[in-house]
């Protein structure tokens, strides 16, 4: 079991991800804005972060949140998975990987793939740690 922080402003999405993470035995902590996410990343010490790139209009966007996570020594080693929502094939994956995200998933989320990805990353970080 691992604590996973999910930064997402869409409530229903949070519910959906929470159910899937909990069924896989994880504990989910939720932040509904970039600022709150940064705070919880430091306070809750999650093993992994799921970050919605397209956060609300007036907020810090996902790219900026990731940059700040990476800049903070407390959180810089926590793997961050980028979640994007695009129906058209606008290439975000390449950029996400360039910006230091551990991986990238597009909505609608394929939870089988996401959970496998999470398990791999957690196993990797255990080995590293």
């Amino acid at each position, binding site marked *: 079991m691992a604590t996973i922080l999910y930064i997402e402003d869409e409530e*229903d999405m949070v*519910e959906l991800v929470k159910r899937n993470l909990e069924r896989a035995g994880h504990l989910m902590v939720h932040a509904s804005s970039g600022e709150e996410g940064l705070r919880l990343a430091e306070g809750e010490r999650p093993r992994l972060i799921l970050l919605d790139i397209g956060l609300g209009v007036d907020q810090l966007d996902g790219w900026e949140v990731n940059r700040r996570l990476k800049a903070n020594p407390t959180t810089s080693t926590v793997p961050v998975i980028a979640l994007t929502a*695009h129906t*058209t094939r606008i290439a975000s994956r390449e950029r996400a990987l360039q910006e230091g995200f551990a991986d990238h998933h597009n909505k609608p989320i394929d939870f089988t793939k996401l959970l496998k990805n999470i398990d791999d990353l957690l196993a990797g970080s255990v080995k590293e740690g």
Partner: protein
Amino acid sequence: MRRLGDRATQLALAYRRTRLLAPLAALEQISGTLLHRVTHTAVKGDLGRIHTASEALLVVVGDILALAGRLPLEGILKQLLPGTVAGPSLEGRLPSAAERIDHLLASKLSIVSGFARELIEHGAKEHTDPITEDIERLGQLAAEARDLGARLVLFLQGEDATEAGEVIDWARVASMISPSGMDHHPGHVLVIDHDSLLRELLARRLRSFGHQTSEADGVDTALRAIRAPGSPVELVLVELILPDRNGVDLLRELRTDPSTRLLPVLIVSAADDPAARVCCLESGADDFLSKPPDSVLRARVGASLEAYRDRSRFHKVLYDTFPRPIAELLRKGNPPPPKDVEDVAVLFADIKGFTAYSDKHRKNPRLVVNTLAKLFPAWDQIARMNKVQKIKTIGDGYMGVSGLFGETGDLVLNCVSCGLEMIEEVTRSSPADEAWKLRVGIHVGPVVAGLLGETQYLYDVWGDTVNTASRVESNGRANCVNLSSRAYQRIAGEVPGADHSHVTVKGKEIEMIIYHVDLDLAPTVKIALSRHTR
């Protein structure tokens, strides 16, 4: 997109819009219906999320489509998400308008498909079989909706994003789906509006289509005009909101009155919302046009008048052919079952001298028919007034009954009074050079009644009572209402002093006493009748 005429472009846009919205509309509708059917709280919660997200999608995509072609993407985004600043480039710091819109759609769509999957994979235990199929359908629809964004962007860029391989010649469609300018027969239209100017405008338009018009400023004045004897009104155009009562009151009054039930009513109203439309149509309006009515008015009025005339002709034939209760049943599509009734008074009437008259005027059939054509409606009226139901006419003969359809009073007395008035009518309408006399026969007893025929219907009555009534008539005295002794016994207390004679009935070879009520007894009959109707 190939350049098309304005109308063709509009039709093509509308068609593609509807196609693009179809998966969302289906998601919204099916999840909404399911939501009402399921009781399990968790399943209901997930369905609610799907429903809310698809509703939101329907609105957003509907808005985008409505603005498409009128605003650039940036403008559309500003309308959808006020305060949003769209970035210029694809992967720059600020997402572009296309990215923002795409994100909006993708987020909502992922909720729809995510929860549909939740229900299919994890909610299975909670819901019962009949809804499993619908929930799986939701999942399929969510998957179908996934490429919506791509199709939408193509659409916004003017590409045909409908199914590949589907080619529609929009110029041809536009030219084929066009008014023919077909003319309808003019009619008389009553225009009801409290505002005299709006009323005048509408009436002027109708007159320009060739119709005649009259006007009313409220429900009460309209009802008076419609119910006036010989009213020419064939169609009513009414504003829903009137100061005295409203258009729905008018509709209800017209629809519950058999004489105006068929009268077409078009609501033309400024109060144009779905609730008002539904209410009017439920109350029997033929259509609902928003005010001021567009070019549909001409065709709508014409078509309503045509339909009204068709229905009226059908009804007239139906009600003229059958007793009213039978016509009512037939109109509602319920053929009456055969029935036997214990106590029915049967009346036969036959004009003495009419056969000779028609032979004499054989070369002039029109004269003969016209004479009967005037006489029979007068008899029908007399029969109705006396609670006697006509069954049929046989040559110059007439057959009616009282008691078959729940008529009240003394059934024999009803027939006697009817017979006497029929005699008076014949005397009145007999041609100057003729001395027609009517012979009426009455008997009372059980009859069997039913509808005969599959194409040419006749509602008829049978039984010994009917045969006897006919024999009483044929053996009776002219200008008299002749009664069997059983029939006379019923009224002897109230109408005493009728002459009687003994006759031998042909075929039966039995003697029969027949009582003769003549016109001298008419006042006594009237008094007796008034006692029963009191």
